[in-house]
Structure formats: C-alpha cells, structure tokens
C-alpha cells in the first residue's frame, strides 16, 4: 500500500543515526521530527537559529518567539542553543550539518535537485535556504511523492525545472519506494507491497536497478 505522508516521514526518520546534526526542510520533511528514533540522540538544526530543536509546544507552553523554519511554533531541547542567521548559514555552508532532508519537485538520475521554482509565472519564486543546504550539507536526502498529481514522474533522467544544485541528492524517500542515487544509476532499496520493478519503472523516468538486498517498504499505521 502507498505510504501516507506521515509514513513517508516515519521511514526517513528510521535512517537517522545517533549524534547526527539534521536539518529538516519545510513542509513534508518537518514531519520527520515527530518520528525521531527514541533510542538515538539526534540534533535538529533550524536555519532561523536553533540547534536542538524539539517538537511543537504543549498547549500553554507556546512562545511566539520560538518558531521553526516553516514558521510553526517550536520548542528547544536541553542542550539546545540559539544563534543568529549568519552563524546558522555558516553551519550549513561550512559542511557542519550531517544531513539535510528536503522536499522536491524533481530529482535527476545524477542527483540533481529541483525544489525551488516551478513553471508557474503566477507566483513569486522563493529559494530560502535550499541552495545553501544543497551545496553545504554533508548529505542531502529527498522526501517527496513518487509522482506529480497528473502522474508525471518526479524522478527524472534530467530535471525539467530550474535546479537548486547539481549532483547533491543521495537518497530519495517516496510513497512507493526508497531509492539510492549512485554513480552507477538509481537503485531501488525498498518497494511497497504489491509493486514490482516493472511497475515502479513505469512510474519513474530513468532506468532503475533493483538492489540485491532490496526489501519491502513498510511502515506502521500512523
């Protein structure tokens, strides 16, 4: 069964490692923070000046001066710190963030990322911190629906939309699969029950390779 958005976020969270400094992009990736593995200490970075960000505040504990990058209310964990925007992006550009998980419109077979501008001329484009993260984080992973609403594959041979950065994405979590972007091509690590490589390939532009140790992609009901 196709994963829900919350299940996709849960799946991405399972790969987080003890002690990693992780930046979660706005939108879908923000949900990852709800599923951090309880046995691992992971430090969330928010580009508006937080390390050690916690989840949403309990009712009555909201502080309007404490928000996340998506402008939602947030909290700070013990050990956390506040700093200004310039130090925050120093961390990002300087390679201090171990992992950036971002949403995307498209990812190419060579790991190019397109997640800031659409074809639409109706709305002002915005880039935010995406280019800094894509260029600076030690690793970039993407969390997105496998296909656009009209069925168009979002994993492309080449991106059709303006790039955020070239050759930066190493893993993609979708509602159908977990895919690794490698020098050799796009490898399928996990697929949901009921899907085979042929079916997944039809929903994906570049040629897929099935990993020898591939597994079924499953997630708890969330």
């Amino acid at each position, binding site marked *: 069964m196709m994963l829900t958005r919350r299940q996709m976020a849960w799946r991405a969270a399972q790969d987080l490692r003890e002690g990693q400094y992780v930046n979660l992009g706005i939108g879908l990736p923000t949900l990852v923070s709800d599923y951090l593995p309880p046995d691992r200490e992971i430090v969330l970075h928010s580009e508006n000046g937080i390390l050690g960000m916690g989840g949403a505040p309990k009712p009555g504990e909201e502080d309007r001066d404490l*928000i996340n990058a998506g402008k939602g209310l947030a909290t700070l964990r013990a050990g956390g710190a506040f700093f*200004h925007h*310039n130090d925050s*992006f120093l961390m990002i550009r300087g390679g201090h963030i171990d992992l950036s998980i971002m949403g995307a419109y498209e990812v190419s077979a060579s790991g190019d990322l397109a997640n800031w501008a659409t074809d639409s001329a109706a709305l002002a484009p915005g880039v935010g911190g995406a280019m800094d993260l894509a260029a*600076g984080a030690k690793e970039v992973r993407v969390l997105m629906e496998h296909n656009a609403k009209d069925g168009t594959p979002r994993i492309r041979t080449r991106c059709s939309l303006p790039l955020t950065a070239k050759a930066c994405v190493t893993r993609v979590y979708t509602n159908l699969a977990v895919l690794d972007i490698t020098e050799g091509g796009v490898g399928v690590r996990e697929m949901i029950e009921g899907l085979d490589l042929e079916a997944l390939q039809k929903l994906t532009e570049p040629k897929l390779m099935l990993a020898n140790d591939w597994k079924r992609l499953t997630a708890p009901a969330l």
Partner: protein
Amino acid sequence: MIDKRVDSFAAALAGMSDGMTLLCGGFGAVGEPFALIEAVIALGRRDLTIVCNNAGSGLVGVAALLKAGRARKLICSYPRSSDPQVIDDLYARHAIEIELFPQGTLSERMRAAGAGIGGFFTRAGADTQLAHGKELREIDGKLYVFETPLPGDFALIKAYRADRWGNLTYRKTARNFNPVMAMAGKVTVAQVDEIVALGALDPETIVTPGIFVDRVVLRDAPAGRSSG
C-alpha cells in the same frame, strides 16, 4: 554621556529619505520590527529598496509597507511566507522588482558589508540560474559564485533588551537576521522591549555590542513629529 536612546519613532528615523535601502529584520513575523516599519509608512518615504528575508505576512509590517507602494524593489530569499497576499498581488501586477538570493548568501552579503569584505565566493546557487551573469570560479574542483557586499542606508531591527550604549540582547529565534543587519546598516535603529541600566547586561552575553547600533527606541514609544 553616550545615549543612543531616542524618545519617539520620528527621532528614530531622522535622516531617512526617499530611495534609500532599508534592511528589515525578522524571519516571518518573528523578530520583525513592526513599530519601526509602521513609522516608515507614517513618515511617507517611498521608492525604497527593502532587504528582508520574506515579503511580510498578512497586512502588517513589511507587507503593509509594500502594500502602500513604498518599495521599488525587494531583495529577499523567500518572499511568500505565511499569508503572502500582498506580495502575490504586487507580483501579479508586476508592481515590484524582486531580487532573489539564497538565504545564506543574503545574510553573508550583509555580513560582508559590515565586515569590510569586498566580496566572497560561495557554492550556494553557483550551478543554478541565480548565478546567471555572475562571476564563477572553480576552487578545489568545486564551482563557486562571487557575491558582493549588501549595505543598508538604514537597518531597522528588533531586539529584546538594550542599554544606553546600544548593547543588545535578543529572545530565542527573534534573533535571526537582526544582529547581521545591525552590522550592515549605515544607521542602525533597534526597536526594543526594554531598556536597562548601563552595566545591567552581562558583558559575556551581549549579542550585538553597541558599536553597531546608532539609536534605540522602545517599541511603545510615541510616534513623535517628523522634522523632515
């Protein structure tokens, strides 16, 4: 005696003229100096270049300034923050010029202005259309784009506590762009929640030393009368 406190918003903005570049603090609504921006609107200045991460939210602050048609140009990273009705309307009507930078580049350009750095190379955006027409350089096998300093005629910032020397502290994520804008403003004006006695701020924990700050105004100070 050094005393950077001013007792009205008119005094806080003295010397601001049409066509100037204003650095406006805040990330979303948090850390945005609403009262100072309302005062800019009241002062009637126009043809402004606004440097701000977002284009404001709803109908207040930077959004109100834009809605009032006071800005010729917006330099930002992410114009459409929560409730982007004003920027959406201006954009649809081609009524404002928008210059877009990666968020870290926007911040670093202001730091460069404050730090006497003539320009710097960053990887952010180097292989994208935001680098079109800019100087590129390969350094250690990676592509970088050259970016230049971005100073402001005024920096309008929000802080938490201040003293009469202009030393500032901030609250949580309301810090955001404010300290770097303070460094980059030719005239830096801080709207603050509280003014404390000189020496009351711990010297180890002052975030913006007064050297970067020209004027301090309480957020609920009176409007005052403009002399210009």
